[in-house]
């Protein structure tokens, strides 16, 4: 727990403080490459001819489209409704006509397509009717503000894109004392938060005040790395101007990747560790990105939904790197073109930063709420690391791991596909920051191994749950069949006993019958005299004959239920024993057999 002396600490006016800072384990110093793009002011990107707005730009359930093809939509109009609590709406970012609602390529690590609303813009950029500004937010009920934030489609803009209203609603059992605002922007190249802080510091501070009110938190710490002195200065000035210096503190922290990781930043600023598998609210903290704070101010004070964001277009593969204010849904290619196009050979086009961003196969993907950077790397900036060599266990990876994991041990086990072992080494505490792979002398794609191990573990967990479910159903079915069989046997036994008893009675009763028949005959003979009485006697006889058949009834209908048991139970067993690779088809079969069985029963 060293007190890292910040070179800028105390030099800045306003809310700047010389507070004690903590540090996290490891981390790497990277060439920050920020001067490439942070010297030019932000430029508004032109309205593209076509906006492609993905219906899912957040963690949670995708939005459901609420406009039809051919509809005219206005800027800020709701085009996708949230489905469920953890979801977010999407809005049109300019006016125009909906041309299609279809699968389009989106910026996603999988490279897969996803449903998008395609809007042909009309260039008018006409605003829809916006909800009333809630200028006096301090007098508003936090729930109303949260609802406004939710319906404005605000999600975490640092990259995780988790719905902000959910994060701002930690519940009564988790009182929040500190709001942490993440302005660290620790990834190299990216400068959109830097520029946002320089140009819209007042809005960010407004957003901070709104969020403090919603959370009922006493203080806010704004963490900014010391390679962004202009941003820190602007923030300090805005804090001072708003007169909230007593509650909001701008803290300049040393530049060290990954200080901008949520858990790392909380540690640096407060010394608290977010528990493993936990959330910051458990230690009384909520962390939001500066972009999110700005969007919150826009939504609450101006009624504007989240339809644009700052995006850095940078890398030496782009002629004029700079930042843009971009409408969500603008193709990345437009930003590249506005920056003078590509300079030559590209090694990689990346969405996000060089450390945690993912590779794009094409620039024909839209900017989403989570896209902070379009990075065109030249072969010199992103050289081919070559064939990985054997791990020499040098331990550099463990030295730089901010989660203090043992990356090389995890690598050995991930490579051996020993998923239990990788999890023993706390695989799921890995934040995939890439420090380990960055320093690995053998150029092993370590993060890739961890992602693989995580995905496999999730798949296995899912399979296990499915198998467990199938096993439970199978056991329940077996129990039911057994019970039915028992009941049937019991019934049969009862019936036999009854029959035996009847037989005994029958021997004695035969005379009675004969007598009855005799009597009937007599009556028949006398029928001509009295016809109505004979019918009554025959009715009693018919009842007696029908009774045994009715008793056998339920047992007989049970019979086919028992018969198909072997095939159904054999598939059930396969999945029930939890065979590791039990394919889903098997479970489905078991399920189908089970359902059919249920139907029959």
């Amino acid at each position, binding site marked *: 727990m060293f007190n890292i002396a910040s070179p800028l600490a105390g030099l800045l006016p306003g809310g700047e403080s010389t507070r004690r800072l903590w540090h996290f384990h490891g981390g790497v110093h990277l060439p920050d490459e920020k001067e490439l793009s942070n010297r030019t002011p932000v430029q508004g990107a032109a309205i593209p001819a076509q906006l492609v707005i993905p219906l899912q730009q957040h963690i949670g359930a995708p939005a459901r489209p609420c406009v039809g093809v051919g509809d005219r939509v206005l800027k800020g109009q709701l085009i996708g409704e949230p489905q469920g609590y953890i979801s977010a709406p999407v809005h049109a970012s300019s006016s125009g006509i909906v041309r299609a609602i279809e699968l389009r390529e989106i910026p996603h690590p999988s490279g897969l397509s996803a449903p998008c609303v395609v809007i042909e813009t009309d260039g008018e950029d006409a605003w829809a009717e916006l909800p009333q500004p809630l200028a006096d937010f301090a007098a508003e009920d936090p729930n109303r503000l949260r609802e406004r934030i939710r319906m404005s489609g605000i999600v975490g803009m640092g990259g995780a894109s988790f719905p902000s209203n959910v994060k701002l609603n930690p519940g009564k059992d988790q009182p929040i004392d500190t709001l942490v605002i993440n302005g660290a922007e620790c990834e190299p190249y990216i400068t959109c938060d830097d520029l946002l802080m320089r140009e819209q510091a007042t809005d960010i501070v407004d957003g901070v005040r709104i969020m403090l009110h919603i959370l009922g938190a006493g203080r806010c710490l704004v963490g900014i790395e010391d390679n962004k002195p202009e941003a820190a200065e602007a923030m300090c000035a805005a804090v001072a101007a708003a007169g909230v210096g007593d509650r909001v503190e701008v803290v300049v922290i040393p530049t060290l990747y990954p200080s901008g990781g949520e858990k790392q930043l909380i*540690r640096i600023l407060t010394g608290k560790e977010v528990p493993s598998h936990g959330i910051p609210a458990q230690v009384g903290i909520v962390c939001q990105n500066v972009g999110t704070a700005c969007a919150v101010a826009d939504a609450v004070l101006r009624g504007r939904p989240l339809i644009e964001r700052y995006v850095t277009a940078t890398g030496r593969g782009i002629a004029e790197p700079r930042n843009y204010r971009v409408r969500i849904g603008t193709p990345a290619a437009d930003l590249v073109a506005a920056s003078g196009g590509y300079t030559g050979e590209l090694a990689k086009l990346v969405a996000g930063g060089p*450390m945690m961003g993912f590779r794009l196969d094409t620039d024909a993907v839209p900017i989403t709420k989570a896209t902070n950077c379009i990075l065109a790397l030249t072969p010199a900036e992103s050289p081919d690391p070559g064939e990985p060599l*054997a*791990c*020499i266990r040098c331990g550099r990876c463990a030295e730089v791991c901010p989660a*203090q994991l043992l990356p090389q041990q995890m690598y050995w086990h991930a490579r051996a596909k020993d998923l239990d072992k990788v999890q023993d080494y706390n695989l799921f505490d890995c934040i995939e920051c890439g420090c380990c792979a960055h320093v690995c002398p053998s150029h092993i*794609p370590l993060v890739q191994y961890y992602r693989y191990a995580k995905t496999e573990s999730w798949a296995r967990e899912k399979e296990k749950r499915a198998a467990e479910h199938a096993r439970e159903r199978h056991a329940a079915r077996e129990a039911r069949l057994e019970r039915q069989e028992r009941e049937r046997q019991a019934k049969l036994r009862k019936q036999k006993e009854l029959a035996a008893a009847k037989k005994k009675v029958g021997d004695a009763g035969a005379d009675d019958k004969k007598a009855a028949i005799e009597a009937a005959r007599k009556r028949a003979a006398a029928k001509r005299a009295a016809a109505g009485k004979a019918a009554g006697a025959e009715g009693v006889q018919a009842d007696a004959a029908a009774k045994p058949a009715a008793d056998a009834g339920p047992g007989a209908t049970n019979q086919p239920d028992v018969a198909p048991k072997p095939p159904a139970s054999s598939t059930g067993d396969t999945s029930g024993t939890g065979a590791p690779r039990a394919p889903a088809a098997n479970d489905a079969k078991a399920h189908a057999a089970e359902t059919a069985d249920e139907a029959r029963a």
Partner: protein
Amino acid sequence: MDRGFISSPHSARINRVDWVMLQVCLALVPGTLALAWFFGWGVLINMGLAAVFAVAAEFLVLKLRGRPALPAIRDYSAVVTALLFALTVPPTLPWWLTLLGILFAIVIVKQLYGGIGYNPFNPAMAGYVFLLISYPVAVTSWLPPDVPALLDARDLTTLSFLDSARLIFTGALPPAQTWDAITAATPLDEMRTMLDQGATIDVIRQSPLWGAFGGHGWEWVSGGFLLGGLYLLWRRVITWHIPVAMLAGLAVMAAIFWGIDPQTHPSPAFHLFAGGAMLGAFFIATDPVTACTTKRGQLIYGVAIGALIFVIRAWGGYPDAVAFSVLLLNIAAPTIDQYTQPRVFGHKRANG
């Protein structure tokens, strides 16, 4: 999966195995120069021979294993093994013993376990110990340091380049010379023999063999390796944990017994500078493949090696003990690692 990077990071890598190995070679220069200065050309001839043998052996085995040989040769790990091996054997060692030691180190200890990264034992030390046990005389026949006072006092001569080459390649001594005229005990050997004969340190130190605290010449060699070690620390090829822990372990043990009786136990400085402690601390024990990887584990590993060196030097059957101690702790390294895992961020307790 192994073919290149699909996922992040996309940045340029800042570290390379061959760079690490070359740094180690570079760091060996001062110690090697001191060794060659005091013990003649044989040192350099042995290093060259060992390097050639090692690369050839590595190449052949990889061919036999059907693995690409070039990337493995290019990482210079075989060269580092060869140099470290050659620095531990006497400059008079016949070429075929160098070959035997290298073959054992590269083929059996390194490649049979899977090559670089997979070997549980330090190949150079295993090769050295193999020779030490099999050919104890040849491996302990050290030359006297080229210190005039010492040579005169003991009537010894040094070897020219040709003498050294002839001795190594043909086993022929220089004309009209005997083994006794060209060899001398190492300081550790001398100290041990004299102590066994009941001499006190004051008496032992009358001999012209001694320098300020180690042996003449040997101190400079150790100093050279110390300098190289500091270079490795500066370039962040190694961390301080293992060398500091190992030297501290050795020094503390030595200090305790020296404090009890300075006439029967040499000083900590002697232990640090007289034998292979410096080379061992910075170059051998820090071999990443075979050492502990957790920081706490490295401290335990280092201290244990240092303490074991003292124990073997003081009461064991061999005058020096770096190789044995390192090999013993190599076996223990995985277990130490298992029980010294760091506490992961956000966890209450450490694993293990």
